[in-house]
């Protein structure tokens, strides 16, 4: 059963007075992987930031951007994160950073249960105590994914999460994302430059060029 998560209608985005995106319209439903493609600089990340700002402030809702979910149910996995080699927290402690609905300084037993379920879902249980700084690129991306999932998102936004991975890890990560989409009934926006991944995993493609977005149904 598909339901609408986000509807964008006739959206214009300007950056420093210059129009970047003109009259963009698209809708995203649950159980869908939407790929956003386009050359560098066409405004893919700007679009995401714009959507997030709208979700945070709720001002633009009535007119152009209509979220069917709260800001708390949107999780972003940013393109860059400052995790260096001597980053101290273990993988499981990194994942629980996103549990901010409660205020207690320690984890409740319910949260611990959720943690172990998600760690096994992303296949990190065996190395949950390893410092994140020592994890490989693919393991890091799975840890980021787990951290986003622990907040129970309805919409997950991946900003070029695969750009630093080899082909095998990219495909594994997207397989995992696909499984999660169907298991948790969520929608995913995936910004990517990789045509192979779009072809293999995408349900819908939004290609942005010359300030316009074109939607293509892939399956």
């Amino acid at each position: 059963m598909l339901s609408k998560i986000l509807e964008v209608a006739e959206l214009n985005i300007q950056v420093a007075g210059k129009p970047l995106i003109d009259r963009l319209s698209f809708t995203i439903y649950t159980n869908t992987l939407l790929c956003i493609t386009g050359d560098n600089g066409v405004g893919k990340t700007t679009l995401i930031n714009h959507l997030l700002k709208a979700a945070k402030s709720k001002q633009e809702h009535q007119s152009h951007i209509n979220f069917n979910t709260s800001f708390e149910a949107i999780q972003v996995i940013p393109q860059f994160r400052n995790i260096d080699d001597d980053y101290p927290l273990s993988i499981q402690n990194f994942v629980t950073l996103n549990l901010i609905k409660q205020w207690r300084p320690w984890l409740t037993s319910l949260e611990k249960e959720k943690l172990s379920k998600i760690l096994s879902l992303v296949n990190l249980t065996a190395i949950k105590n390893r410092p994140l700084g020592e994890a490989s690129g693919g393991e890091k991306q799975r840890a980021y994914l787990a951290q986003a999932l622990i907040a129970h998102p309805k919409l997950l936004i991946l900003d070029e999460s695969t750009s630093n991975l080899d082909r095998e890890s990219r495909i594994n990560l997207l397989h995992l994302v696909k499984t999660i989409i169907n298991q948790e009934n969520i929608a995913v926006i995936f910004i990517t430059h990789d045509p192979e991944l779009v072809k293999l995993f995408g349900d819908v493609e939004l290609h942005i060029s010359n300030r316009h977005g074109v939607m293509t149904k892939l399956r």
Partner: protein
Amino acid sequence: MFTYSFMQYAFIASFFISIICAIMGVFVVARKTAFYTHTLSEISFSGASFAIFAGISPITGMLLFTITSSIFVSLTGRNMNQRESSVSVFSAIFIGLGVLFLSLSNKQSSYATNILFGSIVGISRANVTELLILIATILCITGIMFRKLKYISFDTIGAQYNAKNTAWISSLFLILVACTVSVTAQIVGSLLIFSLLTIPASSAKYLAHSVHSMMLLSFVFALFGTWMGLYLSYITNWPVSFFITFIEGIIYGLALAYAKIPNSSNNR
């Protein structure tokens, strides 16, 4: 040694100072704001000399200066590089002001230099009470914002996207650090506070992999350093600050060596 009441107070005070420094220090180090903390210790010196000039109590002057500068820094420095340069600008201005007020006041200037180097053995019962109030306040506030502060400190970029009110929590944290430095500086000296806030937490970072265990380990390192320093200073009559900073430095060196050696022997 414990027959002297000033020694008893020194040991009690350093126990409590170790608690604050452990809790705040772990966040200070994770947020990479050690440089700012160092600057705060200079700003608190400037605040103290202003207080002498203006004829108000030193703690008021220090809180005034450190909190004001925290607010300015959090307003100006959004990203890390910008913050770094705005911190050095504020540091320079405030040290300049400190020198100005010292020369204008021309009385009791030794007091202001005392703020820099402090004297942990000159602690009174009133100081210990002050410390207790500070700890209670800081523990309450950090306790309430613990999870968000943890997220913002250990995953700054992720939190910017996925959490609300991150700017508020960051500013509040800077103000808490400012209060910590001001209240503890007049007891143990601002230079010592800077090292106790940063070195134990930096050492713990190499050995512990959760926020709670980092705090616990920082506390143990800070407490060991201060108590051992007090004892050695009592026997040798050398300054306590020297021993404490030296011991903390050695702990850091050992922690770093421990973290690097096993890594090079079993390269994955």
